[in-house]
């Protein structure tokens, strides 16, 4: 609540972790070959089964690693922009990425305007990075995001202040994936909290609506949600009224993710002892105060791992928008291969897209571990 209080969790974490780090690092501090030999014997050859496992693992590495390195690095073609060179070299054709990276990253966005999604992404990612730091968690963050979204929207759409208009049917690649995933996660999260609270509500009507929603949405694959959003939903709209396809997909992703997240959040709510609710009640806190100040801060901490799990899942699931014809990162990676001479090099294209996905998902995973440590530092018992 006030400045001196906020610093204490970090300090405590530092104190608690210091001795732990020291013990972990101790064996590695040994010097020279003797230490290495000792480590090897302890960790790799401590028993007959362990020795067998070590040897099998080594054999597998010897079997797989050299050809992989050979293909990916030694025989690889990095530049040139000519598929013939790749075929002659016989290794990985990273020249495909060099030639096609702008299409893979930005899809059908007008070629000479690619700087716009690039700058928009830079701003967007900076804002996400800032939001990740608990020190920025206050109302100002909402203001920052409003500005970021406005500027990002202006860069992507344009149409005024000197930028040419680009309709969002032409958006694609990484910016599209980031928009779908980030908005999907950020908007699904509060919705999921409401759903989880509603599912535990004392009011039967609210409970029934939330249970019904969660069960129905969870019982349907995302593909069909997107399909309904893109094909069936417009059939029910009155003549002349159309809702943008990207918006429909975005809403579909939000609604779908929220149902899954809601169950993770509910798990956290269920884990909070009854006494916490009673103490808050006895002190006269209202329902929203009780939930917002006492229950949710504890419940959400408990379920950081499943929540982030869902975030990661949502990030990757955005690739399913391929079925309704949106050009997300995976679709552009695939579409880049429709150029006949490059067609044999699909592995390279997918590896590239896969690495981008992995980068983001790995970040989320590491971030969740950091957050768990940081938030739980003070409450360690």
């Amino acid at each position, binding site marked *: *609540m*006030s400045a*001196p*209080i906020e610093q*204490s969790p970090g300090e*405590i974490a530092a104190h608690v972790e210091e001795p732990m780090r020291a013990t972990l690092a101790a064996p590695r501090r040994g010097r020279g070959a003797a230490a290495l030999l000792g480590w090897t014997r302890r960790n790799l050859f401590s028993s007959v089964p362990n020795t067998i496992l070590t040897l099998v693992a080594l054999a597998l590495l010897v079997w797989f690693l050299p050809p992989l390195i050979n293909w990916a690095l030694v025989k690889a073609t990095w530049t040139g922009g000519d598929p013939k060179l790749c075929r002659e070299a016989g290794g990985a054709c990273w020249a495909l990425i060099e030639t096609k990276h702008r299409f893979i990253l930005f899809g059908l966005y007008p070629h000479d305007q690619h700087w716009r999604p690039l700058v928009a992404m830079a701003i967007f990612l900076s804002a996400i990075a800032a939001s990740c730091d608990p020190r920025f968690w206050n109302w100002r963050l909402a203001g920052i995001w409003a500005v970021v979204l406005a500027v990002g929207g202006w860069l992507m759409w344009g149409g005024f202040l000197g930028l040419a208009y680009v309709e969002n049917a032409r958006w694609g690649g990484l910016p599209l994936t980031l928009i779908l995933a980030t908005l999907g996660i950020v908007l699904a999260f509060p919705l999921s909290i409401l759903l989880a609270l509603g599912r535990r509500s004392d009011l039967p009507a609210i409970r029934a609506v939330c249970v019904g929603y969660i069960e129905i949405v969870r019982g349907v694959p995302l593909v069909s949600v997107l399909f309904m959003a893109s094909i069936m939903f417009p059939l029910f709209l009155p003549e002349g009224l159309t809702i943008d396809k990207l918006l429909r997909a975005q809403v579909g992703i939000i609604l779908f993710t929220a149902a899954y997240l809601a169950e993770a959040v509910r798990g956290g709510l269920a884990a909070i*002892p009854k*006494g*916490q609710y*009673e*103490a808050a*009640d*006895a*002190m*006269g*806190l*209202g329902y929203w*105060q009780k939930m917002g*100040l*006492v229950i949710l*801060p*504890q419940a959400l*901490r408990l379920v950081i791992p499943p929540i982030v799990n869902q975030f990661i899942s949502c990030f990757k699931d955005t690739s399913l928008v391929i079925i309704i014809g949106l050009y997300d990162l995976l679709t552009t990676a695939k579409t880049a291969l429709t150029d006949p001479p490059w067609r044999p090099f699909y592995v390279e294209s997918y590896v590239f897209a896969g690495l981008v996905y992995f980068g983001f998902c790995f970040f989320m995973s590491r971030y969740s571990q950091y957050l768990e440590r940081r938030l739980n530092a*003070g*409450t*360690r*018992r």
Partner: protein
Amino acid sequence: MANDPVILLDKVNKWYGEFHVLKDIDLAVGKGEKVVICGPSGSGKSTVIRCINRLEEHQRGRIVVDGVELTSDIRSIDAIRRKVGMVFQSFNLFPHLTVIENLTLAPLWVKKTPLKQAQETAMRYLERVKIPEQAHKYPGQLSGGQQQRVAIARALCLKPDIMLFDEPTSALDPEMIKEVLDVMVELAGEGMTMVCVTHEMGFARTVADSMVFMAEGVIVEKAPPKEFFAAPKSERTRQFLSQIIGH
């Protein structure tokens, strides 16, 4: 005292499904009176005080606190909770907040007290329960006795007229019981109205104006402590007292 009750229970009944927990409970607590409720487990003694601030709902009868009748109207519940502080067996401090944040939470959000003032009040009560130096620690870093004293201070920060204690020392290690009871004795000395469920008979003798013995959902006996301990009227009470004092 008794002609001006701040807490009045009039033929209060409560059922858990088929199970009749409270049977025609009549109890009047005057301003500044200290009532100690004892009885075997399952006798409904905790349920009685939990009904007073609506942690449990009674199904029949009347509960009036300081002139406000407790109904399902949220305004009556809020009005009563503002006057009544409660201390639990399991402390129920908020583990994600520091001690001082625990103390200032309700004053800030319920009473809209300015932060500075809320913190000053909190520090004053922490001094009264003799742990001001723990203000910036988390509850998990304190001993049970310290946690319970924080819980008492937290309830006092809302300036209640009445304090309810639900077995405040039952979850404590023996050597920590005294530090909590000392705080409660001090509080009693300041004229706070207190209703206390406890098995600490020494505390009851020192502090109580009246003793209530409950068994099977009924108030078996209510008497001043001298009478209660020296000459209990009912056989059931005598049996209970011999069991808990015998050791």
